[in-house]
């Protein structure tokens, strides 16, 4: 009985803050997101990666409740994203174009947030912005793109949300600002009760702070899981040019690069690879991400030494 209780409790702490199933979004003719099933456990900093147009923004907007799904459902903090002040208070969302009222000052925005949110940490915004020497009393339209992004980030954090959804928050920042921002994120996450999903193309940055990965490609989820697990699952196999059918039967080949002499495979390993013909290496995050992303780019690697592309979907 004790054991059973402990298990239940363990299960409760690992509760998924974000869970989607069959989540689909279609705009007139384009399918932006298709049959998306992801889950992000409590307290994770999840990286949402994928090529442009893979559906990252769509997924974040669906989770924020800014867009409604065509099919499927999303569950965030125990319920669907909805028009309810109590729910909205828990969600922080920052759109890629960091929309702010250009004619209003940062101070005005702090005031707006204070009037519209039950929890509002105005002091943190002021401290953060004055630390970055961003003036509070100038119209935000006159600030630089990077400064505007900082203002918007600070405002999003001031809401003290439990779920933070950030669409390419790093894109507009210089390397130092990026480092500071990521430090702020990890700090906020360490404070507890905060789950973050951030989309980004900067794998090096992601590697430093994220402990969870969602990989979208061709409007579908390719990978979703803790970074540790993802790293453990994937292997790079290097061997002489030869038939890969045998490997493909046991493991899922994500990507295959063939040159005249050798074949390099990225596989999602199903158990240890025992074929002595292949040298087995650990894959790093960048190799895994690029491996999946290049699947839908026929131009990638297609030189005179043609690379055969294989879709992992067919192997599963």
């Amino acid at each position, binding site marked *: 009985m004790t054991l059973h209780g402990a298990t239940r409790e363990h299960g409760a702490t690992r509760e998924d803050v974000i869970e989607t199933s069959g989540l689909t979004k279609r705009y007139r003719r384009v399918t932006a997101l298709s049959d998306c099933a992801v889950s992000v456990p409590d307290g994770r900093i999840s990286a949402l990666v994928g090529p442009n147009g893979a559906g990252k923004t769509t997924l974040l907007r669906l989770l924020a409740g800014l867009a409604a799904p065509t099919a499927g459902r999303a569950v965030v903090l125990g319920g669907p994203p909805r028009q309810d*002040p109590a729910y909205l208070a828990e969600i922080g969302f920052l759109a890629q*174009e960091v*929309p702010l*009222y250009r004619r*209003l000052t940062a101070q005005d925005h702090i005031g707006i947030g204070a009037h*519209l949110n039950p929890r509002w940490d105005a002091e943190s915004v002021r401290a953060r912005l004055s630390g970055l020497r961003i003036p509070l009393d100038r119209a935000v339209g006159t600030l630089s793109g990077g400064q505007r992004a900082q203002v918007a980030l600070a*405002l999003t954090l001031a809401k003290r949300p439990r779920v933070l959804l950030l669409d390419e928050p790093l894109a507009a920042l210089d390397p130092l600002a990026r480092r500071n921002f990521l430090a702020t994120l990890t700090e906020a996450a360490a404070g507890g009760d905060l789950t973050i999903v951030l989309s980004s193309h900067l794998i090096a940055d992601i590697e430093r702070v994220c402990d969870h990965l969602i990989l979208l490609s061709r409007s579908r989820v390719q990978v979703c899981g803790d970074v540790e697990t993802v790293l453990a699952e994937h292997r790079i196999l290097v061997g002489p040019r030869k038939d890969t059918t045998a490997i493909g039967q046991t493991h899922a080949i994500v990507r295959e690069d063939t040159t005249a002499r050798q074949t390099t495979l990225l596989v999602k390993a199903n158990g240890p690879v025992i074929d002595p013909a292949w040298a087995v290496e650990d894959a790093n995050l960048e190799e895994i991400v690029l491996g999946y992303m290049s699947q839908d780019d026929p131009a990638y690697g297609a030189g005179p030494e043609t690379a055969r592309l294989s879709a992992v979907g067919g192997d599963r």
Partner: protein
Amino acid sequence: MTWVIWRQYRLSAAVAGAILAAFAILMLITGLKIAAEWHSALVTCAKDRTCGNLSQSLYLGGGPMRAVTALTLLVPLLFGMFWGSPAVARERETGTVQFAWMQSVTRRRWLSVKVGWLLLASAVFGGAVAGIVTWWYSPVNALKPDQFSPGNFDIQGIVPIGYAVFAVALGIAAGTLIGRSLPALAVTCGVFLAIRMAFTYVVRVHYMPAVTTIYSVTQNLNGKGAYWPLGQGIVLPNGQLTSTLSVGPGYIIGQGAIPAPCAQDSTSISSTLTCMAHLGYHSFATYQPGYRFWPFQFIETGIFVGLAAVLIAVTFFIVARRDA
């Protein structure tokens, strides 16, 4: 939320307030002048016992000021174009809805407060302009009651409030539907003008059935006050009505239609008219009586406020459903 709206609109409210104040001062100065003119004319005519002909000898509110009051026809349209159309469209265009809608406030509440203040502001500003114009016109109306005719009716009383509320609602709905402020502004302008013209020149006259009076050809219609003339003509001895000919003391319109016996004896207009009266001809006039001015004002205001309510309902429906 009100604080937020104020932050966003305080500049434009200040501009509108300044323009209104300038307009009020201009109207006050010229209005007092007109009122003084009117009173001194009354005193003079009372002495000379010529007050009956005052409207022929005196012209009040001449010069550019009439044009200025006529321009207030466009005031509701300005509210619709500059407060209404950008209200939602501008926030969509710049993406700030994504900021506003991710605060702990539902879209419904965001929209209610925003729309509520904009409608209230337009009603107050529109009402103030209309009030000033109505006051300015009071001596002019006393001298020559004409406030019921199209154009004058539209800038006095309470209808301008209805137009202002409608214009802003139209702008908001168009902006929400189209999602971009410039096209929304153009649509607001076009639709507003079309609907206003349709009401002024086609719909308004049907609010109540017009009155037709038959009177002697040798007299003028005694419509009392600011009646709205719609048509006049002659009642033939057999009871038929015709508008090809209309007559009154001092004028005959449609000379060719004068009955033959009287046409020959046309030494003077009055003799022709006496001749027609003897043959059993009468004059008729169709009009909306002056006492219907206020009922018409209320009906038209009600219709425009009702249209505004429909447009606002559509806006709420779209905002609740459409993605940000």
